[in-house]
């Protein structure tokens, strides 16, 4: 079975994002594989151990994204595909078109894994968009995965810790959440081996995806306001607790609970 894993090259979550006007930001910062995509890749690798076949890591992004594909190869993907774009932000619908075309050119997917969302644009829709274009079922937020023949069983978390078990038929798209597994760390020999694996670069222009598909445009990035340093209370626990409650009551932040709550 051929398993595709869609990954994204994103700024390290601890990096300081400096907006430079419009959708532009200072990109001279550390980039990593989108954390959810590590879980997607790990599940693909575990599945390959059982079913055999091939794991193909695929990304759409600027040329620098090849570095994250290399990481995927070091973790154990067999080969990589980079759909090269010019802009940093490509909206989810356009990205889904690019990934779909590249996948269909490459072969028939048995399974497709993605992260449930990226930590840069936090769109939370790529798995759905890709599934709709491929006309296959999709479940995101997966915290458990199993496959038997064509039957895929996913567990996903609802609000408040409830869980749903969903069955669907492969091929399908699975959006990985953090609870799914613990991603492996590549060793030095893995990294050496990854250098010999192939990355195929497809220019966006080679794909029959017209311009102007984008439905969401980033107009501006604004630094989020920090709330700054607040009031620091010191003293004995009882005194601090009383003082805090008084302050909260003054601001009407908690009166309803004091009245007996909801």
């Amino acid at each position: 079975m051929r398993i595709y894993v869609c990954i994204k090259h994103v700024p390290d979550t601890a990096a300081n994002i400096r907006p430079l006007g419009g959708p532009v930001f200072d990109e001279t910062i550390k980039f990593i594989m989108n954390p959810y995509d590590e879980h997607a890749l790990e599940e693909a690798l575990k599945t390959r151990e059982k079913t055999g076949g091939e794991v193909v890591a695929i990304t759409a992004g600027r040329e620098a994204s090849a570095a994250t594909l290399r990481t995927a190869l070091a973790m154990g993907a067999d080969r990589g595909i980079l759909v090269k774009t010019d802009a940093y932000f490509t909206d989810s619908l356009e990205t889904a078109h690019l990934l779909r075309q590249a996948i269909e050119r490459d072969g028939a997917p048995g399974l497709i894994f993605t992260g449930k969302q990226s930590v840069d644009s936090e769109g939370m829709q790529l798995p759905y968009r890709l599934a709709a274009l491929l006309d296959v079922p999709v479940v995101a937020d997966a915290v458990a995965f199993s496959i038997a023949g064509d039957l895929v069983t996913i567990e996903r978390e609802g609000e408040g810790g409830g869980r749903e078990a969903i069955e669907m038929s492969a091929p399908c798209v699975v959006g990985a959440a953090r609870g799914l597994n613990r991603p492996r760390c590549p060793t030095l020999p893995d990294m050496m081996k990854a250098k010999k694996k192939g990355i195929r670069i497809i220019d966006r222009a080679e794909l029959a995806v017209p311009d102007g598909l984008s439905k969401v445009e980033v107009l501006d990035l604004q630094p989020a306001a920090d709330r700054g340093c607040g009031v620091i209370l010191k003293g004995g626990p009882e005194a601090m607790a009383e003082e805090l409650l008084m302050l909260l009551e003054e601001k009407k932040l908690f009166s309803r609970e004091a009245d007996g709550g909801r």
Partner: protein
Amino acid sequence: MTRIGVFCEEKDGVIKKAVFGAVTAARRAHEAEVYAFVLADDAEMFRLPLQEYGVEKVVAVAGVNAPASPDRQAEALCRAVDDFRLDALLGVASAAGKDLLARVASLKGAPLALDCLELDLSSGIVKKSHFSGRTTAVLQLKGRPWILGIRPNVFPAVAAPREAEVLTCRPPVEAPQRMAIREIRPEAAGGVDLSEAEVVITGGRAVGSADNFQILRECAAVLGAAVGASRAAVDAGFAPHAVQVGQTGKTVSPRLYLACGISGSVQHFAGMKTAKCIVAINNDPEAPIFGKCDYGLLGDLFEVVPALTRALSRRKESKDA
């Protein structure tokens, strides 16, 4: 006139509270006509609460709950969007809301923004978090209908009573054979839903063990709060991943957020920075969280949290008396 639909999530016959924030936001559109959509065979029981917030038509999207399947529900909702010629469909970006709205947007090839912090329903410009909350992105949606999910608790619910009409639509949706919910395991009873909670208390690694979370649960019981945990506490096995607050866990936006023994990493803030008031309890004066909270209590959480529980209980008793 602008026709705005609101997908109304319900649980055991009760509309989720955050939905009324979405209804209030919908009403602000130019000459808005607000349609509330409930996945139910009859919507009469939802008429009163929804008309209180200015909904004009309460629409039951019937025949999609047995058997329930997310793709079938999405298809039915798509038909409703077409039939009512909606300019926009709003919902709450809860786990179920995000899933359904994303399915609808994907089937329609329509623009989607989830977890919105601000909306302008005349221009299609929305604000939402980017880069784990480090920046706020201003987005322009292009082409109708706009599909929008609001972050719970960010949009206030304001009543605007009127008479609503109840309708039923029964979209001719075939049951697709390729997806089915096989089992639903409900959450433990008594817990307050984290994503929509008005008050949240979370513990970090400093809590030290799963058993020690009991002191947070006791405080939560008096506060009417949901209990969460930092990634460090989850990784250490003190709490399940389902209650993790932060970038790779849940996003919460409560009125009051109490962080106990949490240093305050960027990743943690990504999940709670839109809380109205952040209170930090930590014994390390150098903890970064003290630099970005509203109130900081410098002390041992094992002393401060029980003291807080006692102080809250005293107040409650004196009010009840």
